[in-house]
């Protein structure tokens, strides 16, 4: 059996929903950050898969993926900085404790 577009899309969709599930249920902010990375990576897989199977002669999807990896790295740096600051002020990285911004 050859690996087709559908298989790859299946993997990426699974990855996406695993990420969403992790983002919604984990209380630890580091874990939530990792879940976001999963979501981003599922998008990367989508780009690569579509590029390979539908537009074999082009490299647009690959470039987009490279961009996304760079952006994900930057985003991780910012997110970790926020988490460190939250830890300093709240002595905890539990998302439940950071709910001051409400009515």
């Amino acid at each position, binding site marked *: 059996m050859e690996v087709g577009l559908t298989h790859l899309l299946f993997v990426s969709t699974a990855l996406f929903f695993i990420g969403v599930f992790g983002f919604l249920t984990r209380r630890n902010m580091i874990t939530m950050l990792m879940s976001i990375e999963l979501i981003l990576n599922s998008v990367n897989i989508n780009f690569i898969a579509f590029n390979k199977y539908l537009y074999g002669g082009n490299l647009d999807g690959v470039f987009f993926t490279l961009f996304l990896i760079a952006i994900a790295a930057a985003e991780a740096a910012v997110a970790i900085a926020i988490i460190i600051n939250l830890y300093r002020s709240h002595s905890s990285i539990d998302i439940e404790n950071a709910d001051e911004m*409400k*009515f």
Partner: protein
Amino acid sequence: MFNNINILLIPLLPLVGFLLLGLFGKKHFKSSAGWIGTLSLLASTALSLITAYQYFFVSGKVNGVFQKLEVVKFAWLEFSPGMSINMGVLLDPISVMMIVIVTFVSLMVHIYSLGYMKGEERYSTYYAFLSLFTFSMLGLVLSSNIFQIYIFWELVGVSSFLLIGFYFDKPSAVAASKKAFIVTRFADLGFLIGILLLSFHAQTLDFKLLIERLTTATPQLQSTIATSFLGASVLTWGLLLIFIGGAGKSAMFPLHIWLPDAMEGPAPVSALIHAATMVVAGVYLVARLFPVFAISCPVALHVVGYIGGFSALFAATIACTQTDIKRVLAYSTMSQIGYMMLALGVSGYGGENGLGFTASMFHLFTHAMFKALLFLGAGAVIHYVHSNEMKDMGGLRKYMPVTHLTFLIACLAIAGVPPFSGFFSKEEILSAAYQSHKGIYFVALATAGLTAFYMFRLYFSIFWKKEYKTNHESVDEHHGEAPWTMKIPLLLLGVMAICAGFVPFGLFVSSDGISWPSEFNLMMSIAPVAIGLAGIGLAWIIYKSENNLSGRVSEAGRGLYQSAYHKFYIDEVYLFVTKKVVFNLIGRPSAWIDKNIVDGAINLSADLTDDTSGLIKGWQSGKLQQYAIWFFVGVIGMVWLFVYMLN
């Protein structure tokens, strides 16, 4: 010609004094405030005398007619090229006469206050207020258009309010200042409506143009007369409404109730504001528009005459029963202003017919001198005795010789005894009244008799009657009659009260600006002098020495005496009308509507917003993951919508 800078400096010097003392007085000029105020006013007085000399003797007259000269003029508020509110300085015989009176009396009061207000806590504030008043009053008399006069009119009201309430820790003074302000302000509403009516129809605010357009046959005059409301033309309404403003300031019946209470202020203030200058602003206003009254609308002028005559007699009756010396003088002021109004009311326009006008201005002039003198003398007495009540006085002639002499001069002047100043002006008023309206003549004659009676009742009660027994020995032993700063103004005003009558007034002030020699009519002076002497004689019998005659007289005319003593219950009527009628029928219902309907509508919308936000505010929980769920649900909902529904 005139030096415009000099004329502008006359009102501006007191303004500078006010700003200087008002802003820096408490810190820097605590003890020198009086001298600063006095010196600035001294300069102002000198300048106004120079101006008067130049106007009357050098350049005011062109072809035998005193001109209305607009020496300074600039547009203050320009709405459109055709419509602007100007500021300017108008010189004509009455305004020049008024600046001389105002600066002179104000100077006397400034000097007098150096002694009277010495050691006062708010000494510099007092002088700042005096300067403000002088500035506003000078601005008022020099105004070249009717809107400018209104501005200064209100400024005068404010400074009067501030000075009546000068002792603001005394509840009665506070009440009196509020009363004065509210009553005059109420009258000023009429004034404002009158201004708007007249200036709308005449299409100008400027006095010169307004008078010209409303006295000659012009389209403006036609439209003013043709438009009518409730049976009277707009011209009549406008003039009467303006007169209401004047009646409020000049304490004419029935808007006089504030004047007696205004005596809560310091005595020099009463002399300046409530005797010599501000209260005659109403007379001045009518005189300013006199051609319009006399030529175009004699009906309104008759109303002025009747109200003046009634007020004169009414106030004179009350003055006979009052025991507070300043209140006696207050009612006397009201009565004399009534006299001036009456004189305007019986006057015609031009030449011989304008006798009443000249007489009114003449009386304004002489009255300013002797009434200021009376108030300053009363102030000296109060300063010495520490009481306003007649019963605490008596026999003061030995202790206060200067005050006694000057007070006697003023009393003789106001009673109309020749050759003191009041005699000449009263004689003119009475002949004017005799020529045009016999009824008013007899009212004026009766008033003259009453005036002589109550003034000498006052004089005998203060200076004769009984031996003076002091209540507080320690105080009186070390302070004499009065400091020299208080005696000098008394003496100067005393000289003026004697001499002012010899001015040939008709040569300077007349209704149409043309000089005419007012001839002295001996026959006309017999009746008033006789009735005046009778009044003095009666007062001599009753009050010269201690006896029970006054008690018996008041007992005999008990009803009249009691009602006059209670000022004919006018205050009570006002209280009834305001408290019972206005408050209950208008005030409370509108308060109810305001509280329940107007506020209710606002509160309803506020409550609705509050309730709604209470329902939905839980959505903003601060929990990041909840927001994320909403976001995903939303995205899924959108996808569902676009994929399945919109295809």
